[in-house]
């Protein structure tokens, strides 16, 4: 065992990369849940995004177009969920599960000819001046653009939810859909848009795995990342900034256990591999105190 082989700067830098897919998926789900919808299909949307992004990127040679394709794929699956739960008034828990099972099957089918194919490379951005700062430079300012997209999305979501009129409407719909309906807001339209945004974000998160982090397509490659994103939303108490903390905490555990595996610690690999999931459970137990949006998971039906 050689713990000195673990470089703390590289560790922190890869922490940001490891946290990004979860952060992207979680910020989308946060908006969905603030609109009062519980979409348990994040895992399904994420893996569909991973495969559709990979296919688009490989066939066009452009990772950016790949990410666009992933967002589209995720949003499309989200739309299916939206139609079922908002228009056909199905149970959100069951539909979310169905979406995950469906997405896993769909992605496996779509990606069967892409196993073993290499993704076009997605270069890191070396931000001039800032990237040259010692220690902080390599940790924060030498990543690929999607890491920053994730951070910008968190900031933008916070601004949208708390500083804009549309954000207020969305929160009103999530807190009490009957009152929002009585005020004349289009509950179903707001929710459908939120669900599609959530799907697009989950798709981006999935594509980050298949295009940047791995970068390959393998069946079931999200390995529960979508569920961890759901857990982080609860951990964050439905607040955008605390999502960052949750995602980095999770990214930290993931990266640390991978580094420990590489360093050859005397703990069997299997027990290290289960640590991110155990950490998620522990975090959920400690932080179950947040207040969920009032109408979360309830079916809205405007009766006359």
């Amino acid at each position, binding site marked *: 065992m050689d713990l000195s082989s673990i470089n703390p700067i590289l560790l922190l830098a890869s922490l940001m990369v490891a946290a990004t897919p979860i952060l992207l998926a979680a910020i989308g789900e946060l908006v969905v849940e603030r609109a009062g919808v519980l979409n348990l299909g994040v895992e399904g949307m994420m893996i569909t995004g991973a495969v559709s992004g990979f296919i688009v990127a490989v066939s066009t040679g452009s990772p950016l177009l790949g990410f666009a394709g992933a967002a589209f794929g995720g949003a499309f699956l989200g739309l299916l969920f939206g139609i079922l739960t908002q228009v056909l008034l*199905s149970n959100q*828990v069951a539909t979310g599960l169905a979406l995950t*099972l469906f997405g896993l099957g769909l992605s496996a089918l779509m990606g069967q000819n892409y196993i073993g194919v290499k993704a076009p490379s997605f270069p890191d951005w070396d931000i001039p001046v800032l990237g040259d700062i010692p220690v902080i430079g390599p940790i924060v300012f030498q990543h690929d653009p999607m890491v920053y997209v994730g951070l910008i999305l968190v900031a933008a979501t916070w601004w949208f939810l708390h500083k804009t009129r549309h954000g207020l409407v969305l929160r009103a719909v999530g807190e009490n859909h009957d009152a929002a309906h009585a005020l004349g807001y289009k509950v179903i339209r707001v929710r459908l848009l939120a669900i599609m945004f959530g799907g697009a974000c989950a798709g981006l998160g999935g594509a980050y795995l298949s295009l940047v982090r791995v970068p390959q397509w393998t069946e079931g490659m999200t390995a529960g990342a979508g569920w961890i994103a759901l857990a982080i939303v609860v951990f964050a108490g439905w607040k955008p900034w605390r999502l960052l903390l949750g995602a980095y905490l999770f990214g930290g555990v993931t990266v640390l256990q991978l580094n420990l595996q590489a360093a050859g610690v005397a703990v069997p690999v299997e027990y290290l591999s289960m640590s991110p999931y155990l950490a998620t*459970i522990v975090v959920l137990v400690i932080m179950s105190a947040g207040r969920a949006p009032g109408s979360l998971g309830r079916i809205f039906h405007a009766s006359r």
Partner: protein
Amino acid sequence: MILLEKRPEPSRAWAVATPLLAVLLTMIVGGILFAALGKNPFETIRTIFLDPLFSEFAWYYRPQLLIKGAPLVLIAIGLSFGYRAGIWNIGAEGQYIIGAICGAAVGLALYPMESRFIFPLMVLAGAAGGTLWAMIPGILRVKFGTNEILVSLMLVYVAEQILASMALGAMRNPEGMGFPGSRNLSQYPSAANLELVAGSGMHWGVVAAFIAVIFGYITLSRHIFGFHVRLSGQGPRAAVFAGVNPKRMILICLGISGALAGMAGLFEVSGPAGQISIDFNVGYGFTAIIVAFLGRLHPVGILLAGGLMALTYIGGEIAQSNLGLPGAAIQLLQGMLLFFLLAVDVLTNYRIRLSQRGTV
């Protein structure tokens, strides 16, 4: 303009008709999908849904129906209790794995002793293992209010890692020349879950599944506990006034589903799978969720839905080997079935009204 009007009571006729409608829609859209994959849609649908029962090799496939259907029905019956009470255990796959490990551990520890008590002991250990694994989300939910959906699911990934560690380490066959996987339990007479009638596919797991269906039916429709379960789901506050202890209800429902999933795991590992190996589990715990919903959380419905889902597994394998249909297409077909069921379910609870725009 199309309007939905809530029915005062769910329509019984539609409750029976919607699963059939969902199957029909799945066949149609599945057929389009198969055509898009370059297969003959009619031949593929026939291969999946009819060949296992009626082709010239059906004598081989029919027993498979029982072997694949039994774990699905057993797990789904357990899940249906929780789902009716609004307790969402989606980690049956993990409970299934841990049940199999605990049950197999008893068998492996006693090898090569021969006694008629070993197999029953293994079944008990399997049920206990599944129950314990399900108690983790249960106790966390009761003590800390932690979301049982997420915890039970996270534990599936943990269970898979434990399984890998067992197959490669503690439970590896000492005479296996270093290959991963335990001793073959189906070749150890006292621990084997063999067919009760040769060539029928009928093993103890199938018997347990039928018992579970009867037990489930009596409990849900004839016993006060079943009434409390249904009440907890439909009106949690009303249930409290009726004397239901919600915390106990959570633990009992998770316990039942854990025990049945654990037993299903043991029957599988000591019979059809034969040994603890890295991937002996094939996702029955997740497919059972589809079975539970497709069967409308009703024991008899679950029995039929389990049969249908087993049919798609077997038919899917036939289509895979005879027609070259990708295995993922079957997984997609199963997901689609649940989707369509949830979509057409609106007809059970709502009436569709057409009205002129403006008169609303």
